[in-house]
Structure formats: structure tokens, C-alpha cells
């Protein structure tokens, strides 16, 4: 799948509820366009952050994650020549990830548009991701010019979940399961996810 940008949500979950999470943004394929946008202060009424501002915010998020008990090994990667950014961290319990993400969603007012959280039941061996896409996100998208909408048409959202135990079943028939049945991948278009929140949901039953 060719994209204008790709957002990746990777989660490695061990059976005891601990694991590692990585959130990445890859704008490399659109780097020429992003570079020219970065030269403007406002695009379609939205403020364009500078490289320094992006870097500061990434490090603010990292500092917050480092301050949270149960989260460790926080790493930030930023490449302004390719526009690839990622934050990764290890966690003792997935519930702590929810708490941290909730704080980040609220701080950057992302909750008004989109948010997700995880649920892992050790004894029942079930994993679920609940996601909401607020009407505001769709409204914001509809307000974009046709050109901007066109630019977003190939943006991809990729989720990868890896487990200790093999996957018994999943609620998403379109998700790919690895031959070892220990990993699951889902790739959806950003625009489709905006209009159908269910596409961002996931439920997995482990063996």
C-alpha cells in the first residue's frame, strides 16, 4: 500500500500484562510536501509547528512518560530529513498505558477527535482495543478543502499487536494473523477510520 503518510501503533504484550509500545509517524513519502508546508506558519487556518516545537513536544511527552511509575525505557526518535518520528516505552501493566495515553490525549486535545484504550484480561486471555472517533474529527475533515482531502486519501493507519501466546480468534476478519499466530496486523486508510470508528476497534482471544 502506497501512502502519503503512515501512522504505526505497535504493541508487544506479554501474558502477565507487561510489554512494550511504539507509536510512529512516517511522513517520508510526502517529505517534499511536508517540507514546503513547514515553511508556512498557517495552512488552511491551522498553525504549522516548527521543527523545534515538534521536537520540544516529543520530549515533553517523553518526560511525562518517564515520570510515570511502571513505565520505563522511554525512547524518542526524530528524523527531520525524512519526517519520521517515534516514541517507544516499556510498561509493567497495560492499564498504565491507558492512563498515560489518556493524559496525552487530553493535553493535546486529541480526545475531541479520537482516542483509544486497551483492555487485557489475564485470566480470560482476552485483549481488546476500544476506539472512538468523535464527530468533531469528521467535521474537521469535511471542512478541509478538496485538495487537502485528496492529499489525505492514501494515509494509512497500521496497528501491530504481538503476543506470547497464539491467537485463538479475532473480532476483525480483515486483520492479518502471522503464521505463528502470535502477531496480528491491521492496515486501514485514515479516511476510512474517520468515518467508521469500528475499523479501529480490535478484539483478540488468546489460547
Amino acid at each position, binding site marked *: 500500500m502506497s501512502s502519503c503518510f503512515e501512522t504505526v501503533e505497535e504493541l508487544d504484550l506479554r501474558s502477565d500484562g507487561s510489554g512494550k509500545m511504539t507509536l510512529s509517524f*512516517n511522513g517520508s513519502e510526502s*517529505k*517534499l510536501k*511536508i517540507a514546503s508546508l513547514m515553511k508556512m506558519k498557517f495552512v488552511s487556518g491551522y498553525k504549522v509547528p516548527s521543527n523545534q516545537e515538534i521536537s520540544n513536544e516529543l520530549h515533553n511527552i517523553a518526560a511525562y512518560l518517564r515520570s510515570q511509575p511502571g513505565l520505563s525505557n522511554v525512547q524518542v526518535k526524530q528524523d527531520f530529513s*525524512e*519526517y519520521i518520528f517515534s516514541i517507544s516505552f516499556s510498561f509493567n501493566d497495560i492499564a498504565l498505558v491507558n492512563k498515560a495515553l489518556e493524559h496525552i490525549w487530553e493535553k493535546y486535545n486529541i480526545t475531541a477527535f479520537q482516542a483509544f484504550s486497551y483492555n487485557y484480561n489475564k485470566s480470560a486471555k482476552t485483549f481488546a482495543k476500544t476506539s472512538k472517533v468523535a464527530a468533531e474529527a469528521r467535521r474537521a475533515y469535511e471542512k478541509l478543502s478538496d485538495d487537502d*482531502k485528496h492529499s489525505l486519501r492514501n494515509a494509512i493507519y497500521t496497528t*501491530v499487536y504481538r503476543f506470547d501466546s497464539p491467537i485463538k480468534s479475532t473480532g476483525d476478519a480483515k486483520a492479518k494473523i502471522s*503464521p*505463528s499466530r502470535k502477531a496480528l496486523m491491521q492496515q486501514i486508510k485514515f479516511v476510512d477510520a474517520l468515518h467508521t470508528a469500528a475499523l479501529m476497534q480490535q478484539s483478540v482471544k488468546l489460547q
Partner: protein
Amino acid sequence: MRQILLSIATLFMATAVGAQQSAIPAPKGAQQVLVYQFPEIFRHFAPERLDMSETANSMLRYLLMQNRYYDFEFEFSNSGISSQSPAFSHHLYTDSLEYSCSLIPLEDAEQFKKLIGILPGQQAEDFSGGKLHSLEFGSIAYIPNNQSYAILMGYSGSYKAFNDESRAERWGVSKLWPYSDEETAWPIEVSADSVVALEPPAEALIAADDVIAVAVDATPVEGEQVSDDDMSRVSVEVEDIYAVREKEIDSVCQIWMRQLLESMLKESKDSYARLREWKDIKFPPANALVTGYFDFKAQWLLGPDWVRSLLGVDDIPSASEEWMQFSLLNEPHAVELRMESHVAPSTAKATSRIFGRKLNRKMLHYINVDKDISVGAYAINTRRYLEEVPEIFKTAYATFRDAEEIDLALDLLAIALDEKAIDKLVRGSGVFIFSDIQPKTYTAVKYNWDAENFESTEEEVTQTTSMPEFIYIFDTKDAATVRKILEYGRKREGLSYRDGIYMLDRPGSMEGMELYFTVKKNLVFMATNRKELEQIRAGKRRGKMTCAKRRFLRKHVAAGWFNSKRMAEVITIKNSDDTDLSRIAIKMNLLGPINFSYDRSRTQTQKGRIIIHTDNQDTAAIDYLLHIFEDLKFK
């Protein structure tokens, strides 16, 4: 003789009544007026054609304030709106509310009522010789008893209108925040009886924004317990309080709207009579389809609320002395967007001085009318510009909170600037040439996903994109200093140098776009293509100009053109793999040249024109252009 006189009198009365019917009362002091010339529009479009056009349809929906109170499938042919008279949209910004007021000529009032959601038999209020209908979201529709027109009126900004406590008190609207900061631990203390009442004392009401804060942050005071029931009861109470306050505000806004409507009807001045109150207003020619008038004093021109509050601007008088007008005209084989602005005498004098130079002739040697896709040229007098700018800013900021500080800062700036030296460095003529579109390759990083475990690895891939190529030229009388600046850039490793041409060194993200500089014969060149500059340095003139184009560029303060057919040609030859661009090329090939110009005037009037030649003999130019425009939009 008497019969003749009687006939004349009858004819005169009939004409007067007709004129009265077509004149729709307009509000006084609107800062934005749009005129939809339906007779001219429908001379070129069948109603059914407009119904099919997304652009025309959205303009008509705007007139009908469609997003405000109803959602429907709009068809002009079944709307009951008359196509024989113009319609108007007035926007009035007061210190309290923003009013939208649409004045619509009617052919079939019953059909129109149906269109805007007034049900048959629905109760209406008798109001100043007509009926007043309530619509959703507090808007109203007035239709006079002769049913010749409708006035739709709505408002916005009510949420901030009562931030002014004295106004709120005067109109009986409850206070925003009745509690002091020390009393905010109220969820446990406030009982339902003390806050929920249809006509509560003002002290018992709080604002909507605070509702959320209280509901979320309502934590019990140490040692006391709040049950879930208490919390949910409090949330409901707070919502009720908010609803009561909203009702109070809405009822005041309804009074204000009715007052505005009543004064409009009483004064009975139509839109043109209102516009004549603007200084030196001129009406556009008969072939104008849509005309917009904007008062420069309108607050919205300053941007959003936070900008206004930052500047300390609360109230701007609407003297209507400085304004801008635009008209969309249907010409034979062309569509013209004509803009005219009327500025204060001091601004007119300043702009007249600033634009007192002609385009540097030498630059014309580098413009090729056949090969270049687009050209834009301007000529200003840099020294006069630097002299005038502080004064222009002083006038503009005179009413602002920190006017004294701004005044001082601008005086200091004027002292610090050496106008003559800068004028030598940058004379003021400039030409921007959009010369080509070239496919460019660049490398990008893609993720490859391992099929076994979905681990990702990065892979470098080669991508192709279409990049515009341009040349920008400005003139100087101090080439030595320009070279000194470029040399400084080289020493600081921002620029590299080879054979008289400097190249901007950029990080990898700009590998598709390169930027080169050179200086030749007191002209400074900046281009994306090195070869172009090499040829210029070798003394090869890339230009080819016609007398007409030469005159056109030098006659106006700023002027240029866009060669649609050349654009189509360039895309077809060099960028045929780009499907989006190829689609644009097909449409561009159907258009003629697009010319634009701006003219200063020694009077207070400044004019701008954009003329799009449609290269078509059969259809009305506007209809032809609309087809192309709508086909070009990405679906």
C-alpha cells in the same frame, strides 16, 4: 384629457407599487453585503443547470442560511424564489450580536415557506404588515402580506454578548458566575431547591463552561462524603441552570432581532439605498452576476476574537469610508473578477508614492511568452515604501490599546532604517516566472513488514513527483553588496559556489527542490534550475516578448498572466505519468489565458482585475468555466 391624465396616474401608481414590491428593506450599517443578480444569472443559466452545479447551489444555500436551521435538497426550480429580481445577503456586526439577513424576492410564497420548513397552518405572528415565522435555532422569516419577498434573519455570537455584566443586568440575564473563588466547593452545599427554578435569582446561576469543570472536578471536601446520586443530581441541576440562562439570552436576542427587523421595515430603504451611504460607492455594470461589498471597518477583517482582544479592539466605528467591492462579470468569451477598493486619502497618497516606479525594462529580456507557464511582475519604490510604511501602520494602529508604544517603535524603526541604502540594494522591480514542471526523483523511507512476525524494517525507495520550476528576478543598484551577502552565506556554509552560481545547501528533505542564485547586470536571479542560470550568465537571453505583453506588464503596478494551454502542454509532454496532473492538463487545455493586474490611482480608488478567457464560442463563459471548475475539483 382627463382620461389621459387618469391613465398616466394609474400607470404611475402601478409602477410605484411594482417598485415598492421589488424593493426589499435592508438593515442599516451592514459591513458585508452580497448581491445576487438573479436576472443576469438566469440569463445564462437555466434553473435546472444551477440545481446541478455544486458551486452555484452552495452559494444559494448560503443565501438561504441553510446550515443555520434546516437541511434539505435544494432545487431552485422548486424554491418559490423569483428569478426576476436580485437577492441580497447583509451581515451586520454590532457590539453585541452578529446578524445575518437575507433578502429574497419571491414568486411563490407558499412554495418558499415549504422550502424553509414552515408547515402549512403553522402559527405565525402578525408583524408590521406581514407575518413573522419562527424557524429553528432562533432564526426568523418575515413575509409581507403582499408576499413579494422574504426576509430571513439569524444571529450568532450570543454566547459572548452577555459577558458584559451591566448589559446582562440591564436585560435581566442572570450573572455568569455568582460565586466567589472561595465558595467553589459547592457541589455538596448546593441543593436542588436553591438552584432549579424557572426564574431563578441571578446569584444561583452559573455558566456552561463552568458546568463541565464542576462536574468533572467535583471532589468532596476532606471528611465529607458525596454520593453518586448527589453528583448526578448536581449535574442535572447544572444543566437545568444552563438551559434557563440560554433561554433568557435567546429571548433577549429575539427582542433585538425584532427591533432590527422593525426598524428596517419602518425606514424601508433597499440595499442600494443603504450602499449609497458608503462613501463614493459605484455600482458594477449590468453584466455583474454576483457583487460583494466589504467595509474595511468590519471587525471580522481583523480576524478571530482572540486577535481583536490582543489588540485591545472592542468597538470599531463603521464609517464605511474605506471599503472593497468585488464583482463577477460575464463577458463575451471571458469571466472577469473585478475588485475595487476605496481607501482613506492618506493611504491613497502613500500607495501612490509607493507604486511610483515602472517595471525595470531589463527584466523583460528574461520572460518568454511562449514557454513560460505564468509570469507575475511588480514595481514599487523601495525608498518611498520604507518611508510610508511606518505612517500606514501608525494610522492602522491608532485606535489600538498600545498605540503610543507602537508609534514610538515605528519612529525608532524609521530612524534605524537607511531608506536610501536599502533602496540601492533592492530597487523595487520584481518578476516571478513559473517556467516549467519537471518530474523529480527523491528517496523515501517505507516500512516493510515481515510476514512471519510483522516486525518492520525500513527500506529506501525511489519516488517521483512533479515539481514546479521558477525564476525570481529583482533589481539592484548595489550588486557588490548583494555579492557580499551571498559570500557571507558561503562562509557560513549555508551556500555553496561554482562558476558564478551560488546554491542553497539544504538537508535531505529538500532534495527534490534546489535553489540557485546569481547576479548579472544589476539583476539578482534566484532559480530552481541551474541550467537556466548558467545560460543567463553566458549572456543568452531566454526572453521572447510581444509588444502587447511588454506594455501590459509596464502599464500596471502589478500584473501577470497564466498560460493555461502551455501548462497543459508541459504536463502532457513531461508529466504524463502523474494522473492528477494529467487530469488538470485536459481541463487547462480548454481555457484561454488568465490575466491579472492591479492599478494604483492618485484618487482614493484602487483597482484589480482577473480575466479568465474561456476559449469557447458556444456557451456563456461563466457556464463553461463552472463546468471546468467543478470537473477539476477532486472527488
